[in-house]
Every structure is written in C-alpha cells, then in structure tokens.
C-alpha cells in the first residue's frame, strides 16, 4: 500500500506567521504535488516536484514556496500566512509508469 503522510490534520495559524506543511511518502517515488481544495474551485495545483531539489510552479504558486531536500519529503511553505490561504491542503504522489496519483489525508489550515 502506498502511504502518503501529511504532518497535521488540522492547523490554526495567525496572519503573518510562516507555516510549514510537511508531506512524507514511504515509497521511492519521484513525483510529488501540493494541491489546495476550496469549495466550488476543486483541486488547484500549487507546486510540484519531479526530483530532489527540483520544483515547478503550478497554477496558483503565489504566496507559497516549497522545499524538497530528500526524495521522501516535500514541504509546502506559506511565507506569511494570510486569511485567503485558509483551505484544505492535499499532498499527492505518483510514480513512473502509473498516472494515478495517491493523496495524503489532507491538512485543514485555518489562518486567523
């Protein structure tokens, strides 16, 4: 079974704080993704990475950055959290030869 673990299920942060969302996979998969889900907007891609130290912007990268220092870990960073970043954040992975993506359980972030 593919296991994708996000560090927190629920998080409450203050406006202006620097926020780290961690995603860890237990397989040797190259491809990792960060999405956010908002009602009526579906899943929107923030950033993705196809290898260590590699990153690509998705559709809505503004206000976010990422870090991938090790293959198994992909971190999403909110440099200065704002209330419009209140959302469900979802990490996903897929692996070579398979288009299907596997998701973590999600982190519900509330910025107050």
């Amino acid at each position: 079974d593919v296991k994708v673990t996000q560090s927190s299920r629920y998080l409450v942060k203050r406006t202006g704080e620097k926020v780290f969302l961690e995603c860890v996979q237990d397989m040797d998969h190259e491809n990792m993704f960060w999405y956010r889900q908002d009602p009526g907007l579906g899943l929107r891609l923030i950033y993705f990475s196809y290898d260590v130290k590699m990153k690509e912007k998705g559709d809505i990268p503004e206000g976010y950055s990422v870090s991938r220092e090790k293959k198994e870990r992909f971190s999403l960073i909110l440099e200065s959290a704002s209330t419009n970043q209140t959302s469900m954040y979802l990490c996903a992975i897929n692996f070579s030869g398979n288009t299907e993506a596997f998701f973590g359980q999600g982190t519900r972030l509330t910025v107050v």
Partner: protein
Amino acid sequence: DQQVKQNSPSLSVQEGRISILNCDYTNSMFDYFLWYKKYPAEGPTFLISISSIKDKNEDGRFTVFLNKSAKHLSLHIVPSQPGDSAVYFCAANAIPEVLPLVFGKGTRLSVIA
C-alpha cells in the same frame, strides 16, 4: 481557462438508482482520465480510470464512458448506495509522468436512502 469541467456542482439520487456524473474537457491532448472520490476531511481516493484508446471501463458498480469526439466522459454508479455520497472529481492528463493531473471542480453526490 478551465481544461476539465464538471458543470453540475451537485446531484441527488435515490438509493438503488443510477448516478451519472459528467465531465467535459477542452484539451485534445489529454489521453488518460481518472475519477476520484472524496469524503469530507479526507484526501481523494482513486476510483476508476480510462485510457483514450478505450471508450468504456468497468469496475464493479462503477463504469466510466469516454466519448473522444465530444470530449466528454461520464461515471455511472449502479446501484447507488448511501456510502457513495461524496464529492467526485474528474481528472485528466496529457502525458503521464510528465505533467500533473488536471482536476475539475467536483460534483457533490448525495444518495438518499
């Protein structure tokens, strides 16, 4: 510009009847399509997929139909069960392993007992 569209935000169906969820896409390069199911406070889980070389794929109660000329796919659930109540996302990919999945906005299915 939305490349994958799910035009029905919600759908209500009686238990035992058929649920039909629709999805349209605009990018003719898409060649692989997936459906995901999502419960509240959980991550999406993969349900079923179809390659563009096929027009139908079946897995138990779930069948996905693809009409390439119309750039349309649909997910049929027969018979619908209360546990099927969730948000369903359609997703597509142009070149597997190279580009991330592109998702629609989702359709909330409610199956009424």
